[in-house]
């Protein structure tokens, strides 16, 4: 528990840093917060997926490529000039289905063929990135005629697309802001989806039998199997959840930018997802972690680069900052563990 208090403190500290380093005017604050919230929603979704999988003792290195593939697939399905020209809803369902299918394949290879998860998903990383390039002909593909297309989309898709106001919840506030001549505020859809996901995942992981089995499998798979738990089934489920969430990320990623860049979409995302989960207290050995921690891990992962941006640290330093934060976190965790173990003895 103390660990999570510490993590929460660390997150707050970075957030305060971001506030202090930002220019103090309403418009840029509002914009930055909108972007932060959006990124937290997105990265959070992928971190929850990776976290669930890591808790059950698995690992998925193909997440980033699955995102790239999902973006490419969605664009190809939506394009008017393309072969399909589907409406968004069926197109997104198909993308999610493909995500689930990829997870199923990964899970089956790991449990039934018994290839190491690291190897299976490493291969997946190449394959799905390659598929994304193949689908798009290795060029940037846009939804060219979206301007005529979008208005016909129903309400929530529109909200998803614009990643802005939903349900008019903020209308009174924004009316007031308008009177003051200030930038209106909005809640990004990705954050809303993320929060719903967090509630579901918390129930699933910490209060349901299924989550209990995830922990048991990650902690001692044989013990779970000998207790009559369908270990293979739950492991496959973990891969399916993880890949499906990657596909969801792909959809959310596509909407605002409205195009697929097969070489860039979701690149390195699997590493960020693992980093967020581990930063949030998941052990790569499995059986350890919690949703609260993962949320904080994902938030730190988004806030840190933003802080370094605000401080004027060049862009390319982002990875150094993330790497160092993770390393320091891991060292502190180990030191604290030893300290408390030494104290328990006496």
């Amino acid at each position, binding site marked *: 528990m103390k660990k999570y208090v510490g993590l929460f403190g660390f997150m707050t500290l970075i957030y305060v840093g971001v506030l202090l380093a930002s220019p103090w005017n309403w418009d840029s604050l509002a914009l930055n917060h909108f972007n932060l919230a959006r990124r937290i929603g997105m990265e959070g979704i992928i971190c929850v997926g990776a976290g669930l999988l890591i808790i059950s003792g698995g690992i998925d290195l193909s997440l980033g490529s699955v995102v790239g593939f999902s973006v490419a697939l969605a664009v190809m399905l939506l394009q008017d000039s393309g072969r399909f020209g589907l409406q968004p809803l069926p197109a997104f369902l198909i993308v999610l289905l493909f995500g689930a299918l990829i997870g199923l394949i990964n899970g089956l290879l790991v449990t039934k063929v018994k290839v190491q998860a690291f190897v299976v998903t490493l291969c997946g990383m190449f394959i799905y990135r390659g598929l994304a390039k193949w689908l798009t002909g290795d060029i940037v593909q846009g939804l060219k005629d979206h301007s005529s297309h979008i208005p016909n989309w129903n309400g929530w898709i529109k909200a998803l697309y614009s990643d802005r106001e939903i349900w008019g919840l903020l209308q009174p506030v924004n009316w007031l802001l308008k009177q003051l001549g200030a930038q209106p505020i909005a809640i990004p859809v990705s954050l809303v989806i993320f929060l719903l996901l967090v509630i579901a995942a918390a*129930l699933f992981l910490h*209060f349901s039998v299924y989550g209990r089995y995830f922990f048991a499998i990650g902690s001692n798979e044989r013990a779970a199997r000998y207790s009559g738990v369908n270990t293979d089934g739950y492991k496959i489920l973990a891969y399916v959840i993880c890949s499906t969430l990657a596909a969801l990320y792909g959809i959310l990623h596509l909407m605002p930018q409205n195009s697929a860049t097969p070489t860039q979409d979701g690149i390195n995302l699997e590493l960020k997802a693992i980093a967020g989960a581990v930063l949030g207290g998941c052990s790569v050995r499995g059986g350890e972690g919690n949703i609260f921690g993962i949320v904080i891990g994902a938030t730190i992962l988004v806030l840190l680069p933003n802080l370094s941006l605000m401080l004027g640290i060049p862009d390319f330093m982002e990875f150094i900052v993330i790497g160092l934060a993770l390393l320091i976190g891991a060292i502190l965790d180990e030191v604290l563990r030893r300290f408390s173990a030494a104290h328990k003895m006496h």
Partner: protein
Amino acid sequence: MPQPPPLIEVRGICKAFPGVQALQDVNMRLAHGEVLAVVGENGAGKSTLMKILAGVYTPDAGEILFDGKPVVIPGVDRAQKLGIVLIHQELNLAENLDIAGNIFLGREPTWGGPLRLISRRITADAEPSLRRLGLDVSPRTRVSALPIGQQQMVEIARALSLKSRVLIMDEPTSSLTQRETERLYDVIRDLKRDGISVMYISHRLKEVEMIADRVTVLRDGRNAGELSKEQINHEAMVRLMVGRELKQFFQRTRARPASAPVLEVRGLRWERRQTPIDLALRPGEIVGLAGLIGAGRTELAETLFGIRPLLSGEVRVDGRAIRVRWPRDAIAAGMYLVPEDRRSQGLVLDETVSDNIGLPSLDRLQRLRFVAMKRVRELAQSIKERLNIRTPSVRQRVNLLSGGNQQKVVLGKWLGRGPRVLILDEPTRGVDVGAKSEIYAIMDSLAGDGVAILMISSDLEEILGMSDRVLVMHEGRLAGELTREAMSEEAIMRMATGGG
């Protein structure tokens, strides 16, 4: 009067694994409320038979009758539905879950509905089986925070809570303290009264004598014989297990008269609040180190060998003070450790016998910094012959050897370097009777060559049979020393439990 059918009857069971016929035409029956001990050497097929009954393996041939009716047990859940529960030899707990979570793993009480949210009842439900075992800890304690003996009790608690009709216990006492073991005996007697049958596997024949109503002996995957309550005694069991008389089980040629000590330890501490430890070993003597689990025996061994940082104290080998910062320092002085857990600490399981034996001596077995493979194999070959390691070739993977032969390989690793002091931590744990006797003979001959041996053991018979004198530890300090003449189980236990 027609006899009621036995609860379980096993007829003509066969099971083969790649390369081994584990069971061949094995028959067995278990009556209601009976405690049946199944004994046999390692590899005799006991565990395989138990795992078949518990649904972990399916047999190749033969039939199982439960309550007189033939049954098929394709999985653990089916076995549990029949009421057959296996307590595994290796701990099978999800360490990151709490005690209650482990006890009810796979059958958590829920609030109902498809969400299957876990009910808070789980904690209260765990209490009775814990209390029955005298386990005085909260069901919400994480299992990883428990000492190993209590973890074993949690496994037993789990089995009790299953409302089983047959409990199969595979070496249940291997990591229990004396008190816990006695508690377990009480529980078994209770179970018997309730009409629950128990199958009990143990290497500790003394336990079998105490607890069993009947003994079935397996040898090389076949039935080797059966003993009724009156016939159960140590020699009879050993005879059936090995198929011959063991002339001399413990082999100890009396030590030579004392000379200058080869190992001297003064004021040794590895923890701040600890009474410093002094001890001395003379060449050619075997000193037993007894004590309860957690008394600090393994810690002492690890500190001497440089695995655990030494806080203070002086260690002298052959009169020369050495600083043990890591195992290299101890090894350079000729002091070696055969660790407690051979599979995780003693061997590289996926490598060959020859690679394992050569590993600590590679500094000597090289040419121009390249490993001299031929010399490694020659060394391994000579050790194999000297210790009678039963393997078709030294190029065999050590994983495929039996426990006893693996243990000989761990010993053999150090013989290549000419030991001065050998620290053996539980040298015969999980080793079958035949190999035990061989290991004792090896220890005796090493002592005859002037090696000083410190033998940590929880097996009091072994301590009494092999030691020239015994040191007893209690809560991190040396509680006392007993000479050969003063040694007895009672005296050792009194010291080990903190009595005078």
